[in-house]
């Protein structure tokens, strides 16, 4: 990793880009530990929470629009809603359905609904919150295709924002990839293609989050693939080194991050998922 990478702050002059790849395969219907809800429910809840978080962070004053600090995309793979069947599509519902990258002010203006949702940390409280993504599950796990679709958006975005903090792509999955190889390239090759797209501030970041339906020990930001159960080693190989801003985010949240740590969270619980998304998307808003 270049020493001078990942130093750009996020501003309207140089906004950031966050893309979430959301596994909507059939196995996402499984119950998530003892939460009483499915992996798909929990993942959608965490994605809606992180989108709300980003909108809140970009809200600066009363009666002023949310600031354009990020362009955001959520792409699902597995079951599709717009064109039923297996594939990759924008996961946004409502007015943003079918849209790729959406500027944060537009995202804030156009949730598909505002409804009562359970607390992400399983406390016995619910709150009304905007919702952009619904839980969906079905079909297999075309992760390679999802990375290819994300790569297309990342490529265009990086070309249009050469001085910005590099794009951040976070993949949330629970299963084994089923379309490897895809279009002549293997999963690692798709990962390499994605992370070879750069801005002047460094290469695209690719982080991976693996959800496990059963309660197992979480493995956060490992610095070696040794000891990771499948598909941990493959996801480790795909994941970017955690750059300094995210290392600091993780340490603030109490994680002991070792040198060489990768942006991989394995066997995460429902309440940890949002924390991981926050660590992965919190970019300095003041110069470092």
């Amino acid at each position: 990793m270049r020493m001078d990478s990942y130093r750009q702050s996020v501003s309207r002059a140089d906004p950031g880009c966050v893309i979430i790849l959301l596994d909507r395969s059939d196995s996402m219907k499984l119950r998530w530990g003892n939460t009483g809800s499915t992996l798909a429910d929990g993942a959608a809840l965490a994605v809606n929470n992180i989108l709300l978080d980003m909108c809140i962070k970009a809200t600066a004053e009363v009666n002023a629009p949310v600031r354009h600090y990020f362009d955001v995309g959520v792409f699902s793979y597995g079951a599709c809603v717009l064109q039923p069947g297996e594939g990759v599509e924008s996961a946004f519902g409502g007015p943003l359905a079918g849209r790729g990258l959406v500027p944060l002010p537009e995202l804030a203006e156009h949730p598909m609904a505002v409804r009562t949702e359970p607390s992400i940390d399983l406390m016995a409280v619910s709150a009304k919150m905007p919702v952009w993504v619904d839980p969906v599950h079905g079909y297999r796990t075309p992760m390679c295709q999802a990375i290819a679709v994300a790569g297309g958006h990342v490529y265009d975005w990086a070309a249009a924002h050469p001085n910005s903090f590099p794009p951040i792509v976070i993949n949330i999955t629970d299963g084994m990839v089923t379309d490897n190889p895809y279009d002549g390239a293997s999963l690692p090759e798709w990962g390499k293609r994605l992370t070879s797209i750069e801005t002047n501030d460094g290469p695209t970041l690719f982080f991976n989050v693996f959800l496990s339906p059963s309660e197992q020990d979480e493995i956060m930001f490992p610095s070696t693939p040794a000891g990771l159960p499948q598909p941990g080693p493959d996801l480790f190989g795909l994941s970017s080194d955690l750059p300094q801003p995210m290392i600091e985010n993780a340490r603030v949240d109490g994680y002991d991050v070792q040198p060489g740590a990768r942006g991989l969270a394995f066997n995460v619980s429902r309440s940890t998922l949002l924390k991981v998304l926050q660590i992965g998307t919190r970019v300095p808003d003041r110069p470092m």
Partner: protein
Amino acid sequence: MIRSRTVIYYAPKRGNAEAEWEDGGAASPGAGGGRPRFAVADGATQGFGSARWAQHLVAGFVGAGADAPPGLSPGALFGWLETMQARWYDDSRLAGASAIERLKLEEVGSFATFLGCELTPEPRPRWTAVALGDTVLFHVRDDRLVTQFPALSAADFGYNPDGVSTKPEALREQVGRALTGEGALADGDLLYVATDAFAHWMVEQNLRDPGVLWPTLAGIAHPDTFRRLVADRRGCGDMGNDDVTLLRAQVAVSASVPEPAYLVVCL
């Protein structure tokens, strides 16, 4: 008798509108018992209403009567900031807040670094300042740095968590972390107060080329000159793209030093 001629220069982040500058700067010739005061604050970009909070703090510090702290002791500061917090929430504009805005107001609120300075003539002329965070005062005499307060190194900027928030429950701890400093003043001394991006650059330049830095800053006579300096430094990567503020106070401690002979009007 102690007087100061104060000027405040500022620039918003590159790409932001003028009104989106989220620092605050203010000066008064004689609040708090006839002693000149000035203050600079830097509202956190992540906060809600940060510009209002920063400007509310500096205006309160230099304001007349009950708005201003009676002194810079921790007790005086705490009482004053309690009042500032209560008044910040008592704003009719908040009645029109959207759901997301209200959530941010309640859960995050606002936060600003702050440096307030008071000049006192007795028993001998001096400045006394209180600082929370990385807004910095530089005391310069004859184009040489006498004191920097707080004494932050270049590596310290961006990592200092201190400041003043709008959350009442955090206030006692925050005031407990306030630093105070002072220094003896002589005729012609210059005091600069700068928010972090500009202060960071000043610290680095003072190590690299103080013989150019201080005459350059002393010679700025128009906001456009300041803006050009900031744009140049940002352009070559020496200065981060942050809101910047520079307050410059020229001090006169003896009656024989004449009042400023001219007034600059910037159009």
